[in-house]
């Protein structure tokens, strides 16, 4: 455990904002703020209304620009190489579609509404993440 990396106040405030956003989309638009589902709905194969999904994603994409008006963006370190990013992206894309959700849809919205499916999904992907990082970082030395 590394306490110098323990930035819980900004983490908690960010989490509260994410929660407020998820509740707003549900109470105002009647929709679950599941990012993987919203993105998939924008693909040519996606069904249903594309306009609100597009605007949601545009809002998401505008966030770093708005954030920069008041603060400087936090440092981002992406250690994965191109091949790893491609494999990871494919797994995240396929996996979130088969599971019907990701960190936002299952982790935030699903757990908040007490869905057993979402609790099981979240425990599964977090555990898979733990094991993957154990293997890549401590066994394979990637």
């Amino acid at each position: 455990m590394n306490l110098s990396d323990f930035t819980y106040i900004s983490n908690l405030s960010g989490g509260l904002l994410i929660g407020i956003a998820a509740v707003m989309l549900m109470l105002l638009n009647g929709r679950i703020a599941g990012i993987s589902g919203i993105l998939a709905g924008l693909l040519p194969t996606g069904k249903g209304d594309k306009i609100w999904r597009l605007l949601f994603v545009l809002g998401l994409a505008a966030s770093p620009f708005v954030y920069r008006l008041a603060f400087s963006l936090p440092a981002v370190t992406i250690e994965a190489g191109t091949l790893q990013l491609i494999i990871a992206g494919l797994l995240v894309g396929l996996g979130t579609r088969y599971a019907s959700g990701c960190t936002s849809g299952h982790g935030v919205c699903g757990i908040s509404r007490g869905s057993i499916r979402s609790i099981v999904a979240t425990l599964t992907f977090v555990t898979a993440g733990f094991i993957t990082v154990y293997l890549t970082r401590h066994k394979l030395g990637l």
Partner: protein
Amino acid sequence: MLNVTAFLVGLLFGLGLILSDMTDPSKVIGFLDVTGTWDPSLTFVLGGAILVGSGGFTIAKKRQRSLLGAPMQLPSATELDKRLLLGSLAFGVGWGIAGFCPGPAVVSAASGQPKAWIFVAAMLTGMALYSLIEQHKK
């Protein structure tokens, strides 16, 4: 109006992701590194979100229509099937390899990280592959 709120909610969601450090893959991998120098700070992100969410969704579940008159589209699936488990497993492995999940990847790509673009392109390809595989089955 629903489109305006969708944009504003997307913006707020993205600001939350940036503020909470979810957009930094090295931070995410630090959180997933339970057998190494574990950084627990991201538990506060999910904790904070669920704190607000559990209150909000309790109200939402009782409603037939949203405050703006839209139908409440709450998921109805309850099955714990192979699709859910294997899909979540694959997602978790990808999350652990890159440190990106869908929302933060889009925000990072928008802020001009070329590596995030590679991830997002592969992720969208994965999503499209899913649709093709599922259509082929029918």
